[in-house]
């Protein structure tokens, strides 16, 4: 064929002008969101109650009571929120922003007409999609310098920024797959109709193909945001200040009473639930809506 559309004409075979269900290859298909959205709002939170009550049962005899433990938690909550969870949110937002921007470029690279670009984009995508996130985080944290000098000005790079880079890599790779999958879900017939009207490849992509599959990319994209947010505590293993790191430090400051463990970590778990649950519900809602109509 004179006008092969690499990665598209070869694999997409239908003649019909319909959008096929969009299945990004072998990604955990909204699995996380589906699971999370499966809770009803209150049972979700109620699940944490037994956890919180656990100290009553096991340490009722100690002189550091569960009341003390909750009092301590109460005392630390503003700090945990402002200096801790806020950073989880900030890290997740920046990582998502960078990951999305880079992922779109990489995804378009995967359907490039230039075979070298296509292969390199594919390789980068697969590499970061299939690497453990923690390993990526370690590499970035250790490989990046503590400071860079720009025009004689020394700029310190805080650890959380490195964490952003580290987490944006797997996001980039997964967004790349979403973009590629969405573009491929548009039937070849749309490309051919546009080609026969003398549209250029750029015009076809930006004016005809992407507008059709844009909405379909939103649910999987949001799904990855929820996954990313829930992965931000990984940064605590690297000493980045976020909620888990600070919870540990707070407990240390409170003489490491074992009664503190469950209230503190349950609190963190609850926060993640409260933050991610609406996103998951929204994801599933949009998924259902866009599945019916384009």
């Amino acid at each position, binding site marked *: 064929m004179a*006008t092969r559309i690499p990665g598209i004409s070869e694999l997409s075979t239908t003649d019909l*002008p319909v959008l096929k269900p969009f299945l990004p290859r072998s990604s955990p298909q909204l699995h996380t969101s589906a699971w999370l959205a499966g809770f009803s709002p209150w049972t979700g939170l109620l699940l944490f109650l037994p956890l919180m009550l656990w100290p009553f049962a096991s340490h009722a005899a100690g002189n550091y009571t569960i009341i003390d433990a909750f009092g301590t938690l109460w005392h630390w909550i503003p700090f945990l929120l402002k200096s801790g969870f806020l950073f989880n949110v900030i890290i997740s937002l920046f990582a998502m922003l960078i990951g999305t921007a880079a992922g779109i470029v990489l995804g378009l690279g995967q359907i490039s007409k230039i075979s070298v670009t296509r292969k390199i984009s594919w390789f980068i995508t697969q590499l970061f999609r299939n690497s453990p996130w923690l390993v990526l985080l370690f590499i970035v944290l250790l490989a990046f310098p503590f400071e860079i000098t720009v025009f004689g000005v020394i700029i310190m790079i805080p650890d959380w920024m490195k964490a952003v880079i580290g987490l944006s890599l797997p996001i980039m790779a997964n967004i790349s797959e979403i973009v590629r999958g969405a573009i491929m879900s548009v039937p070849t017939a*749309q490309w051919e109709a546009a080609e*026969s009207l*003398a549209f250029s490849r750029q015009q076809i992509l930006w004016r*005809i193909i992407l507008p059709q599959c844009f909405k379909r990319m939103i649910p999987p994209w949001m799904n990855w945001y929820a996954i990313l947010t829930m992965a931000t505590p990984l940064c605590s293993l690297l000493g980045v200040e976020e909620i888990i790191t600070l919870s540990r430090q707070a407990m240390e400051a409170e003489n490491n009473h074992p009664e503190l463990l469950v209230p503190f970590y349950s609190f963190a778990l609850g926060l993640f639930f409260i933050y991610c649950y609406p996103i998951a519900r929204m994801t599933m809602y949009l998924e259902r809506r866009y599945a019916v109509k384009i």
Partner: protein
Amino acid sequence: MTSKSTEVIVSIKDVHKSFGELEVLKGVSIDVRKGEVICIIGPSGSGKSTLIRCINALNDIQGGSINVCGIDVTDPKLQKLELRKRVGMVFQQYNLFPHKTALENIMMAPTLVLNEDKETVRKRAFALMQKVRLEGKENAYPGELSGGQQQRVAIARSLAMNPDVMLFDEVTAALDPETVKEVLVTIKDLAQEGMTCILVTHEMGFAREVADHIYFTDNGVIVEHGPPKTFFTKAKDPRTKEFLSQIL
């Protein structure tokens, strides 16, 4: 029918086309003069779609030559976009852009490809909607239109580029019997206005009525061709006879 000039506008000479090992076109030659209506008929899989897709370079060819409006389609430096501005194509499955209204579907290519003034194009698009008898449906999305209506928008969309040649690939094959007629009427109007048309069709009555010349293809070759009168009544080749007996 309008008088035909003798100027050959599409010249297909000994075209060979293969998909890998499979040779689909085995030396096909057709000349189409300006204003002529050509119908290509033949059994499914005989290479009809492949042939007309070669004319606007959606498929490339391995042998022979194709010349459209003076543009050599086999030229390695072929400006595909220039060729496609001259050749309109309508598909079996309409292939309208689902995220655009009927009017936007028609306006897109002239504004974006030909860089024409938007208001001029809008006027032309309204006129075209009228021409294909769809006035009032300008703001409907393809999903809100019947198959026959979508196909007429698709025809208008191609016409908006002011092509010299129109290609139709079994454009009524996916339609309900009731809506087939409205599309055929549209094409007939075009033919009578002197548009050069190359049609692949199974509508024998229509072919007999509007075609200047009919080509019967089987297994990648043209078995027999001629003007409708002689073609339908005096077919000589047994393959043609068998095909016609099945379809008529």
